[in-house]
């Protein structure tokens, strides 16, 4: 089939998936009762006007009285052009609210991802090649610890210890610092640690398991028999294990981060996407809920696309025609 065609095919699928997902979301929204509408109608009813009329007015004003297909078209066009609705709790377009919050999520998200991937794979690989040694047991312990411990409790404990008692780090996030300042870096340390522990743990376990598959493989023996150094042998193992590891790399990590970030942001009061989403949900801000839910979905789709392509690049055995 050829790689170019394969990539094009994958991208096309990604677009189809996006389209389907957006349509489904629209469908769900269309049948969900609008809280604002209910509230408006209630208010009007309290003041003596007709609730039905109030509903109709509301719908006319917000443009929700048109035929379903028109609304669908408008919605889809809006999605593509960046008009994601109006956030009534923040009095700004939803997309602006997202754009404001996103950088904060990235600020701890990127270091946490990088740290967990590098450290996770590194520790996993080391564990696999030094099986049954103390280092291996220590790594496994760390993994279980990281996976078992609830992030929000861990975050609070860290704040208590390092911020309140020891005073090394601030106990909450102060947005007044510039992005690239040392103060900003300091206040990001604890959130990054909290987020990484779980991610490192799962990444490490997986990397260890996949590497173990190959540690005792015959080609490893062949490499040693050639006179290769241990370091070169580890590179060989990693190359072979990188294929299955890459399959979870993108999807898993991102998924993990986007779930955990709610708790981290709430605990540390970082005004990122998680906190935004949390507040939008509790305050019934539909447009904002939609926007903040869609972001992770897009990330997941793109992530899967990247992963699919990476997989075929890494493993020459895969025949494009089979997929």
């Amino acid at each position, binding site marked *: 089939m050829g790689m170019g065609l394969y990539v094009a095919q994958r991208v096309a699928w990604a677009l189809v998936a996006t389209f389907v997902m957006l349509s489904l979301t629209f469908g769900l929204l269309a049948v969900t009762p609008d809280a604002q509408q209910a509230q408006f109608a209630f208010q009007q009813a309290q003041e003596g006007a007709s609730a039905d009329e109030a509903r109709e007015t509301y719908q006319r004003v917000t443009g929700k009285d048109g035929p379903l297909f028109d609304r669908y078209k408008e919605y889809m066009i809006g999605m593509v052009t960046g008009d994601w609705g109006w956030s009534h709790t923040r009095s700004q377009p939803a997309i602006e609210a997202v754009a404001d919050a996103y950088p904060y999520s990235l600020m701890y998200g990127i270091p946490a991802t990088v740290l967990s991937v590098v450290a996770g794979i590194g520790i996993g690989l080391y564990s696999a090649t030094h099986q049954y040694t103390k280092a291996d047991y220590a790594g496994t312990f760390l993994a279980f610890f990281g996976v078992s411990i609830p992030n929000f409790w861990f975050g609070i404990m860290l704040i208590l210890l390092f911020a309140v008692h020891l005073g090394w780090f601030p106990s909450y996030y102060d947005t007044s610092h510039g992005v690239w300042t040392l103060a900003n870096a300091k206040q990001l340390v604890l959130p990054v640690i909290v987020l990484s522990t779980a991610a490192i743990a799962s990444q490490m376990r997986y990397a260890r398991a996949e590497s173990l598959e190959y540690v005792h493989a015959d*080609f490893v023996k062949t490499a040693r028999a050639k006179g290769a150094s241990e370091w070169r042998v580890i590179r060989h193992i990693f190359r072979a294990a990188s294929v299955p590891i890459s399959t979870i790399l993108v999807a898993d990590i991102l998924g993990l981060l986007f779930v955990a970030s709610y708790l981290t942001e709430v605990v540390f009061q970082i005004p990122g996407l998680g906190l935004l989403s949390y507040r939008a949900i509790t305050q019934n801000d539909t447009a904002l809920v939609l926007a903040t839910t869609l972001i992770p979905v897009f990330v997941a789709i793109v992530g899967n696309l990247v992963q699919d392509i990476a997989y075929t690049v890494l493993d020459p055995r895969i025949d494009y025609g089979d997929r």
Partner: protein
Amino acid sequence: MGDEPLLSVRDLRTYFRTDAGTIRAVDGVSFDVRRGETVCVVGESGSGKTVASESITRLIPMPPGEIVGGEVVFDGVDLLSLSDRELREYRGGRIGHVFQNPQGALHPMHTVGRQIVEAIRLHRDAGKREARERAIDLLDRVGIPDAAARFDDYPHEFSGGMKQRVVIAVALACDPDLLIADEPTTALDVTIQAQILRLLCDLQEEFGMSVLLITHDLGVVAEIADRVVVMYAGKVMERGTVYEVLENPSHPYTLALLDCLPGRGGAMRPLGGALPDPRDPPSGCRFHPRCPHAVDECGAGDQPAMGTAGSPGHEVSCVYYHDGYDESAIRERRAADSNEGVGRADGGDGR
């Protein structure tokens, strides 16, 4: 052939420490390989033949494996005393390895050419182009048609027999003095096996090297061995030239093994009993619980010292070949033996 053997293994002991006990995989094994000759180590599973061959260049996983004793003298140097770095110069450089399963022996994500080139450049100061040319030449010499084109192919694009040829090419990359081949043809079809064995013979002449071949197949032994070492449960039972051992088999185990061969017009006689537990091997001769000729001495002390059977180089670890015993008893009793002498009362595998 020089006076000193190229490889001299003396009283090699390799144990594996596991939670379930210490497995004495190789428990005092000695044999020589002279220059230019082919030595076959024969045994069934659990005999320790693979572990012995891998101990020579310390390829066994350590932990849990551990070479607890003996020496492996290669061209005057005891390999067991070398540091890892020093040993690595021998591995691939002067001693080449071929393993059993061609399927897994090559890295699935590197081209075969690259894998041969790696072997070359680990020991020689060759430029990329020079290494590439040598690799193509090697592929050609092991019988891969269209070698230059196939240099860039991946292992999965080769058939089983072809893969094994590539593995051999990798092993020969640096013109080793000794090639250690562990069951190189077991995973292959019988017609391909014949081709590979022939290839090994031809290459041995061409490269002027010694071959240590591990196998369970006595037919393979007959086909290419100069000398034979028969192993059982971590010890050597019999040693000699291929004619001595196969035409005049002297150890009861060797005899039993030959009797187990099928397809000889009804002469197949199964051997009763089971392989001993490697964590708790029998005292005295390891084979005595299954041996139809066992006497009390056989269970006492250690594996019997080597006695001679017929010619001076033909050694047998059996009390019947010591002074005071009549070795012909083994052959006579064997002829008259019925099934009742073979196997135990517990029937079946007796475990």
